[in-house]
């Protein structure tokens, strides 16, 4: 078996056992990347030289007996391109950050390095994490490895596609309204968004500060748990960072859900949900029920209000967070200006894509005088109600289950002309960010076109271990999933070459 098809933990233990070196892994991975990148475009930057040097360093340390309690030491991975990496281009897939090489590492970058991770490169994404298809990247779209005529989802599309296409053993993405979970579901991989504050945001280029979180995307639940152990942790540089009581996420990987109380909101299964997706999700709940979990349907309101609240809050915060991109201190500056104001306006109009501009305009609007109370404050009130709704639900249930997305992966170009339609696809994921809850998407089957379907599990704050246990137990009932054309030549629309 190709080592690139191994899971991250499997590779990690083979490296520790001395079967494979980290450098072997890096070389094998880059071979596959070279083969497949033309098809999928998962990466913005590849750091082969750096990866080999680093692999050598880590290999030496492992052989010297260090990194003993780091199960992923020597395992190559990749980071979404909105996570700062010292000296390496960090572009947020935007022209306005062209050439930007941060003089510092993000907190997660530091943690991964300390755990012996080896960075392969930076992954493609929707510009500034705004989008659900990875079509807004200034470097061109990512293609879904299950069908290159379709999107991988977004905004961590490159991360999910790379994990699915075995172009990395695991990836680090970010999730503001579903950007880890939804592409994971479209690409047939596992992705987790932690409780807000569990992973430091220091060095994550901000989209919506009160909603952003960094999380793992990998080919199975165990890998996600192992990555969570590396990246989660309190950071004094992030005032919204929190201390968890218990970081031993891999202890949760136990195939036992007896007595687990599962709630499924009826409103999640209503109109707009693809019937095949609905079937697969209900099937997932049944599988857990067969293992001893108690599944119940219940009424949770507020589902319809999550998207308006999300877009108001996210756009407002984004409009402020992105104001610093002005051509003064870093990134792109228009060559064509006479005075300061012109420089600002042309740089920004030129440097940002349409979706980003759209959200900045919305954001400016909902914060502007006269509209602040009606929109922004109201959205914060709706957010409070959404949280309250979840709190009430979690008094009765340990986890909530539902679809990750209402459909499987749409075709490239399908959603671009209708932003509102695209926003509505986030219906199941945004409320989780609004309430600051942890959520995980696990593959639960494919539709009749062979496209992956994801089931989302949501927990109360700090209940990552419960989620991981449920996800792990569920995963055990599913056969492995792998995009059929991975080893074939370039194909279109699901056909074999």
């Amino acid at each position, binding site marked *: 078996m190709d080592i690139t098809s191994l899971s991250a933990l499997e590779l990690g233990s083979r490296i520790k056992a001395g079967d494979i070196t980290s450098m072997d892994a890096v070389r094998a991975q880059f071979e596959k990347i070279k083969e497949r990148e033309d098809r999928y475009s998962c990466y913005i930057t590849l750091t082969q030289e750096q990866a080999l040097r680093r692999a050598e360093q880590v290999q030496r340390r492992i052989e010297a007996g260090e990194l003993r309690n780091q199960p992923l030491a020597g395992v190559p991975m990749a980071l979404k391109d909105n996570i700062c990496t010292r000296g390496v281009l960090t572009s947020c897939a935007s022209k306005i950050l062209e050439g930007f090489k941060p003089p510092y590492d993000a907190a997660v970058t530091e943690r991964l390095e300390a755990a012996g991770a080896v960075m392969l490169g930076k992954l493609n994404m929707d510009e500034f994490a705004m989008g659900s298809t990875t079509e807004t990247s200034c470097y061109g779209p990512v293609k879904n490895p299950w069908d290159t005529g379709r999107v991988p989802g977004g905004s961590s599309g490159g991360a999910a596609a790379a994990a699915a296409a075995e172009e990395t053993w695991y990836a680090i993405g970010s999730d503001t309204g579903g950007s880890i979970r939804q592409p994971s579901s479209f690409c047939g991989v596992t992705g987790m968004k932690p409780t807000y504050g569990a992973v430091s945001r220091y060095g994550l280029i901000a989209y*919506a500060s009160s909603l952003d979180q960094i999380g793992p995307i990998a080919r199975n639940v165990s890998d996600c748990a192992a990555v969570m152990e590396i990246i989660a942790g309190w950071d004094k540089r992030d005032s*919204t960072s929190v201390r968890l009581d218990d970081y031993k996420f891999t202890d949760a990987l136990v195939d036992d859900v007896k007595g687990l109380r599962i709630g499924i909101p009826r409103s999640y299964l209503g109109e707009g949900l693809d019937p095949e997706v609905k079937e697969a999700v209900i099937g997932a709940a049944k599988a857990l029920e067969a293992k001893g979990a108690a599944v119940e349907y219940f009424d949770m309101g507020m589902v319809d209000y999550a998207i308006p609240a999300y877009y108001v809050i996210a756009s407002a915060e984004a409009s402020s967070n992105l104001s*610093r991109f*002005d051509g*003064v201190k870093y990134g792109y500056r228009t060559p064509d200006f006479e005075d300061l104001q012109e420089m600002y306006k042309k740089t920004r109009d030129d440097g940002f894509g349409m979706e980003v501009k759209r959200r900045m305009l919305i954001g400016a609007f909902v914060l502007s005088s006269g509209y*602040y109370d009606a929109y922004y404050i109201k959205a914060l009130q709706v957010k409070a109600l959404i949280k309250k709704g979840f709190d009430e639900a979690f008094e009765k249930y340990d986890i909530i289950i539902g679809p990750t997305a209402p459909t499987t992966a749409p075709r490239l170009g399908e959603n671009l002309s209708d932003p509102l339609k695209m926003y509505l696809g986030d219906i199941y994921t945004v409320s989780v960010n609004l309430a600051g809850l942890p959520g995980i998407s696990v593959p639960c089957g494919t539709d009749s076109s062979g496209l992956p379907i994801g089931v989302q599990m949501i927990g109360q704050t700090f209940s990552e271990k419960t989620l991981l246990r449920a996800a792990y137990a569920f995963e055990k009932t599913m056969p492995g999933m792998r995009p059929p054309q991975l080893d074939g030549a370039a194909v279109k629309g699901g056909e074999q070459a």
Partner: protein
Amino acid sequence: MSYEYETVIGLEVHCELSTRTKIFCGCSTEFGGAPNTHVCPVCAGMPGTLPVLNRKVVEYALAACLALNCDITQHCKFDRKNYFYPDLPKAYQISQLYLPIGRNGHVDIECEGYEKSIGIHEIHMEEDAGKLIHDKWEDCTVIDYNRCGVPLIEIVSEPDMSSADEVIAYLEKLRRTLQYLGVSDCRMQEGSIRADINLSVRRRGEEKLGTRTEMKNMNSFKAITRAIQAETDRQIEVLEDGKRVTQETRRWDDSKCASYAMRSKEDAQDYRYFPDPDLPPVFISDDWIARVKALEPEFREDKCRRYVSEYGISEQDALVLTDSVRMADIFEETAKICKDPKEAANWLMVEAMRIVKARETDPSQMNFSPRHLAELIALVDAGTINRAAAREIFEKIFDEDIEPESYAQEHGMKIESDSAGLEKVIGEVITANPKSVEDYRAGKKKAVGFLVGQTMKAMNGRADPGTVNKMIVKMLDEER
């Protein structure tokens, strides 16, 4: 027909808090330094960076609010004020709009013959912006972010002032209070205190407020006084011409003694304030308030009274000594050691202030040991050095904090205690200057002065003029 007008003035005062580090990052707040050397990715607004609040900033702001009689907003938070300007790297300033730390305070001022209470609308914490350096040679501006993120409190007064005198009295009271607290240097020349003036005029007796203008860039109390006068005159002239005062921001140019409307910043002044999602709110408990209040120093008024009763100095002198808490502290320490408060007071009020003015600095910057001043006073009291020498030595103490005894020794300033030797020299001087002797004998008592001078010269200053004078008179009278 001309009317009687009254002026209505409100102030927005920004004070830099004297914490060691900036408000949201661990950069030094030290003044000066090469451009962008007290800067980190956080205060330079680099992508992915986040603010973390400096506890001391809250403590200092809290102390200021309490000393200025404000109600404390126990649950307060930070908001983002969004606008574009090159000195603002994040394109938003973290400030407090909705829940400022202090509200409804007041400050009592004393003007010529009357007292008045000036209301403080609110006090809030915020971060300072960087510095723009307009290049002389090239048509460009260069930005230095060293000052970016330095903690500020903004003190917004009610429009309760009606003259430049009141404004100056208010500013002096604020400055002194904050210096006494030790929370800010309040040095206008360094920019650690800045005042913007909101001014309008109206006919005497009218209740409605006139349209106000905002004035910036007054860098000294004198400039403030001139600006207030000029703007009052200008607005009155506008109204008398039958026109309306335009609400605008004006920049004061002290060299021209005039103000100019600043071209309004292109962006609409819609700052879109919203709570900063990166900063959790601040809760100031009753306990915290009590602790900070307990640390309040003795303020000027009480100190003044105590100096009069404890040290027996005049109220006038006490006022001078307590104008600067640094001066007051040096005074007290010196008085404790040398046990001669009147001397200590004199040295500070006369000599120290003379040097302060000559060096174009202010008393808060005095940096010498009270012990050395006390030693100097002791040397003079003991007759070991004369006053002229003492003044010279004091200047050295002021500048370099030297040890007076050893300095006097090294520089041969100690008075010759050998009176026989002195007599001999006086004798020589008298012999060498028969005309002066004649003049003295003829009744011109002042001729002694010349002989004293000559003696001092012959003695290389190492004598006490008073003693010499007495000896000369004695010898001349004896010779009869």
